[in-house]
């Protein structure tokens, strides 16, 4: 059955209606006459990281502190590999986006003085269960934003190096979308599901990061030749065992300390950075002193109740787990484990290499949120702030970005359509546009995904090696991933739900290949909790630089770049696009 085709044009196209994407749309909605299109692979109502709700606003500048203080904190936590301009510019907007969130209806706890109640240094306490419905409803109230739900973007449309739109398909019906725009903002989130997960069986998707954020935002850019940064700074989160629920609520909320099986507090031996904490738990266990716990035994029954409630607002499976075990947190310590590694620019510095205005290295393309690199510890407010900055910059650049011409893009669109059709044509039948039958693929996308996750786990520093990897292992991973990538080209499905799974796999494979190139390129171990390079086990300060990469003539090239302290603006080579 041929695809039905839908074509649309807009001034600004937003890919991914999550946190940053919805906020970019809301920012642009203030400009009447501007047409904005948001595409979302699910439905913006609850899509992305915020689906289950969040527990706190993790990044807020409290009275007595400044955005520069936040910059110092992030620099320390990330061991120096950050972009000062990016962290500072988002931190400067933390408090204004919180004000707007409160206007939209977010419930924020206040203290006796009327100030927001703090949790730890930078967090404020909220009821974040319905934060995504609040955002998406606000988007629907706008006049100039059109939302295309259930449309999965697969490729950028490009003209002379400029991004001028995107192509995708409906995950519901056999419809292809060709969307042209003067500017494109990518807010498609980070990548989960690259490595064999904590619960590889039935509960394989009980992971921390959304399993539906499949690294497509990165893959789109890599394919189109965008420069990426710091993928090697993977994120390994320290989480509650099995449910992979956040631990901050217990650690900061009731002040529970991390202890090993002998009851010793071990964090002071490893440092208090995010990576140090994760490394502590991994290494204590590796050295035979596990399991490790958050020491909650002895908290009050009132604290028990508050914890059960707090988790219902963000990670309900943890509450259910306490109830299933028949023991409340006051009666049993909460066991900890490290997650499988993710690539997520909202927590570490991985993602698009952008200038201070969130322009990517491809003209006409902007990036914000977990997909954008250089600014770790964004969390919700940083994703919102970046969505706002990217929207402001795209808007300012629009006069120099005319709507692309039609004809020039048709060949690209045809090639994309042909690939969709090939994946949905039964093996051994010639598909449209080709005379020969395509070779059969004996596997399903699920089988190849499992194979990819096994390769990553075995040879690229997954959970089972305690996140350790060597160059010799990375070589094997690289070779195996090439084989899987070749197999994936011939995958077949029967409907666009299958096609979604095929594309998710292809995107993850590409992100894995980039990740391996980055892991190999940084010859030191800077963030031991996120990954341990056994060939180069220590921190080496000659590596105070960024590892960037770009696909050039089909090969991924590494570029080392010096640390950036001041604001930068990208210039693009002249093009007639």
């Amino acid at each position, binding site marked *: 059955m041929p695809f039905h085709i839908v074509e649309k044009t807009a001034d600004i196209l937003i890919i991914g209606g999550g946190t940053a994407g919805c906020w970019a749309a809301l920012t642009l909605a203030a400009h009447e006459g501007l047409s904005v299109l948001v595409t979302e692979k699910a439905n913006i109502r609850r899509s992305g990281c915020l689906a289950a709700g969040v527990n706190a606003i993790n990044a807020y500048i409290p009275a007595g502190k400044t955005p520069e203080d936040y910059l110092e904190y992030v620099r320390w936590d990330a061991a120096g590999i950050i972009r000062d301009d990016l962290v500072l510019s988002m931190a400067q907007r933390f408090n204004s986006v919180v004000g707007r969130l409160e206007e939209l209806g977010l419930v924020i706890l206040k203290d006796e003085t009327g100030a927001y109640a703090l949790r730890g240094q930078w967090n404020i306490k909220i009821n974040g269960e319905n934060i995504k419905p609040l955002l998406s409803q606000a988007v629907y109230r706008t006049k100039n934003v059109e939302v295309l739900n259930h449309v999965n973007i697969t490729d950028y449309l490009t003209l002379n190096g400029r991004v001028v739109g995107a192509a995708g398909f409906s995950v519901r019906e056999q419809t292809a979308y060709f969307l042209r725009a003067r500017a494109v903002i990518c807010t498609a989130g980070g990548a989960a599901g690259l490595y064999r997960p904590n619960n590889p069986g039935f*509960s394989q998707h009980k992971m921390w990061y959304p399993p539906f954020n499949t690294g497509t935002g990165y893959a789109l850019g890599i394919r189109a030749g965008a420069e990426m940064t710091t993928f090697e700074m993977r994120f390994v989160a320290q989480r509650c065992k099995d449910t992979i629920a956040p631990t901050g609520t217990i650690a900061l909320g009731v002040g529970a300390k991390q202890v090993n099986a002998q009851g010793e507090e071990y964090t002071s031996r490893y440092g208090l950075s995010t990576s140090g904490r994760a490394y502590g738990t991994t290494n204590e266990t590796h050295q035979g002193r596990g399991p490790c716990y958050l020491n909650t035994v002895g908290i009050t029954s009132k604290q028990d109740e508050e914890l059960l409630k707090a988790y219902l607002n963000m990670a309900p*499976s943890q509450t259910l787990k306490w109830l299933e075990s028949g023991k409340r947190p006051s009666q049993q310590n909460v066991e900890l484990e490290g997650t499988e590694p993710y690539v997520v620019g909202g927590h570490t510095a991985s993602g698009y290499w952008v200038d201070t205005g969130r322009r990517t290295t491809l003209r006409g393309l902007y990036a914000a949120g977990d997909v954008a690199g250089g600014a770790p510890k964004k969390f919700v407010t940083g994703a919102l702030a970046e969505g706002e900055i990217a929207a402001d910059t795209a808007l300012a650049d629009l006069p120099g970005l005319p709507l692309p011409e039609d004809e020039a893009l048709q060949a690209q669109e045809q090639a994309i359509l042909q690939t969709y059709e090939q994946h949905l044509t039964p093996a051994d039948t010639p598909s449209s546009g080709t005379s020969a039958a395509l070779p059969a693929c004996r596997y399903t996308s699920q089988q190849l995904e499992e194979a990819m996750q096994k390769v990553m786990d075995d040879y690229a520093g997954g959970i089972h090696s305690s996140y350790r990897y060597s160059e010799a292992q990375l070589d094997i991973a690289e070779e195996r991933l090439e084989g899987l990538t070749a197999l994936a080209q011939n995958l077949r499905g029967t409907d666009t739900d299958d096609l979604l799974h095929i594309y998710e796999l292809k995107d993850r494979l590409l992100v894995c290949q980039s990740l391996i190139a980055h892991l190999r390129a940084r010859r030191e171990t800077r963030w031991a909790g996120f990954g341990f390079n056994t060939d180069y086990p220590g921190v080496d300060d000659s590596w105070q630089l960024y590892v960037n990469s770009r696909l050039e003539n089909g090969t991924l090239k590494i570029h080392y770049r010096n640390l950036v302290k001041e604001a930068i603006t990208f210039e693009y080579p002249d093009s007639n696009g």
Partner: protein
Amino acid sequence: MSILIQTDKCRNCGRCIEACPGNLIQVNPQGKVWLRHPEECWGCTSCLKECQFEAIYFYLGADIGGRGSLMHTRREGDLCHWIVEPPDGRPVVITVDRRSANKY
């Protein structure tokens, strides 16, 4: 990690389909709402919170500590009652008020 849709309670309103961040809930060829990929469920509980008819139940896989309890939600204005029914024993109800922030 997964959910069960109780077909006898489901009114086919489609809200859960729109709530799922992973497009996992779909309409099957018989016209019934079903979870197409049970092993792909993230456990976010968006679908059960959106269902007005208490037709969706959530459970933990045995691989992550499940012992067969089913959890669902009942809405009452700003209150959300989370009801956990163990296979043997009395249900536990925990009520969360949307207007009050987490204490932790």
